[in-house]
């Protein structure tokens, strides 16, 4: 008798559970536009956040519900943008490739060291100690926090400084967020130069620390035909709205701090 009761009880619990779930699935069903799933399938699924949304599914949702532009995925590129445009029935705009640049040339031998660091292998940790082991307190520490952050293997530490492989870089900005010195910048103009230094100190001090640092000699500023480059806080800064990529500043710079993206490394 009790065995029958047991079997009946478990059966009732099971059936009750099934009924609750079926009813819930039916009456609390959330209508999701099928295009969201289609677009999510087109996307690479890396969830890198480079599009500015919290993952591929989130971006797909934003495209369908809030009309986000279809060409934001740098990983998927133009092919992906075209697929998404096809799903949404719109034209795909041109994708702008952005990639990261580590604005520091102070490799071993070029930039001196303040001390030998033997602590935790983390730039964030080393930066707490007097600004880091490099003589230049603004430069790349080279312990690889950016390397750990990159999901695409596009950045590596060579000769003590981080280097970006522009071909592999998708422009997600993870390295930029990870760098404690804030020395990684996102660049999107292949024909316009980059100032490879962020040292704000006076030229005389910079020369003692690093042979590849900007000394604020103002030669670039004086020679720029568009007045696009100015020395601000003892370091050169380019206004990309005015810059035409003529390359005059690159020729005039005595320290070879300014480089075209193709010539970096």
């Amino acid at each position, binding site marked *: 008798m009790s065995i029958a009761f047991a079997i009946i009880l478990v059966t009732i619990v*099971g059936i009750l559970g099934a009924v609750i779930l079926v009813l819930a699935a039916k009456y609390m069903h959330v209508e999701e536009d099928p295009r969201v799933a289609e677009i999510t399938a087109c996307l690479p*699924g890396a*969830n890198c956040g480079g599009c500015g949304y919290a*993952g591929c599914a989130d971006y797909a949702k934003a495209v369908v519900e809030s009309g986000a532009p279809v060409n934001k995925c740098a990983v998927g590129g133009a092919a992906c943008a075209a697929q998404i445009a096809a799903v949404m029935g719109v034209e795909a705009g041109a994708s702008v490739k952005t990639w990261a640049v580590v604005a520091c040339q102070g490799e071993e031998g070029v930039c001196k060291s303040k001390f030998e660091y033997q602590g935790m292998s983390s730039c964030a940790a080393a930066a707490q100690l007097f600004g880091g082991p490099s003589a230049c307190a603004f430069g790349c520490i080279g312990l690889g926090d950016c390397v750990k952050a990159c999901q695409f293997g596009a950045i590596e530490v060579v000769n003590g400084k981080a280097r970006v492989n522009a071909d592999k870089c998708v422009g997600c900005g993870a390295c930029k967020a990870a760098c404690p010195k804030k020395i990684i910048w996102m660049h999107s103009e292949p024909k316009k130069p980059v100032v490879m230094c962020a040292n704000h100190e006076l030229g005389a001090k910079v020369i003692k620390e690093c042979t590849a640092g900007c000394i604020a000699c103002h030669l670039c500023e004086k020679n720029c035909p568009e007045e696009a480059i100015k020395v601000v806080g003892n370091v050169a800064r380019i206004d990309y709205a005015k810059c035409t990529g003529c390359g005059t500043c690159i020729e005039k710079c005595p320290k070879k701090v300014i480089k075209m993206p193709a010539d970096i490394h």
Partner: protein
Amino acid sequence: MAKSKLSIVTNGLIKENPVLRLVLGTCPTLAVSTAVSNALGMGAAATFVLICSNIVISALRKVIPDKVHLPCYITIIAGFVTLVQMIVQAYAPALNAALGVYLPLIVVNCIILGRAEMFACKNTVVDSALDGLGMGIGFTLALTAMATLREIIGNGSWLGITIVPESIDRLTIMTSAPGGFFCFGFLMAMVVLYETKTNNKIERKIGCAVKEGEDE
């Protein structure tokens, strides 16, 4: 897949040992390995459930609809776990007291559910039974290895027989919680060392509870 029957069994022993290679079933490994007798008892119980549930799930694999496969598997496994609970309560009350809550928790042991999803639902009844046997023995071996370490260092005994002389102090921390973690980590490091020497190293991710795209 022309796999010999024996290779299915030996697969679970070393090559795909559920605890040390697949990193499944970590909870009972840490909790129950305080004494070798407990480890053997838990291993036997888990092996029994594993074999039986693998057989039943494999037999029903064409019948169970895909949408509800998970609750079905869990119910089948729960049935066998209840069976084991009753047997242990009746015939080995000391083991029941030692295992405590971990006996019913075999039902959520990742090894059993994991093997059901990975193997039993895709293979014949005989193969699944052999896989269950192999995995169960592998689990027992790993558990016993850890328990040996913990019991000898922490209690100076093995299977209740005093081995270390009374004059030497026992390191009782080994039989408590931190000792479990430490022992597991140490054992895994030794396995990794062996793997590296034999060029067999694999990337370990926690077997269950890691969602898609999530870092380990």
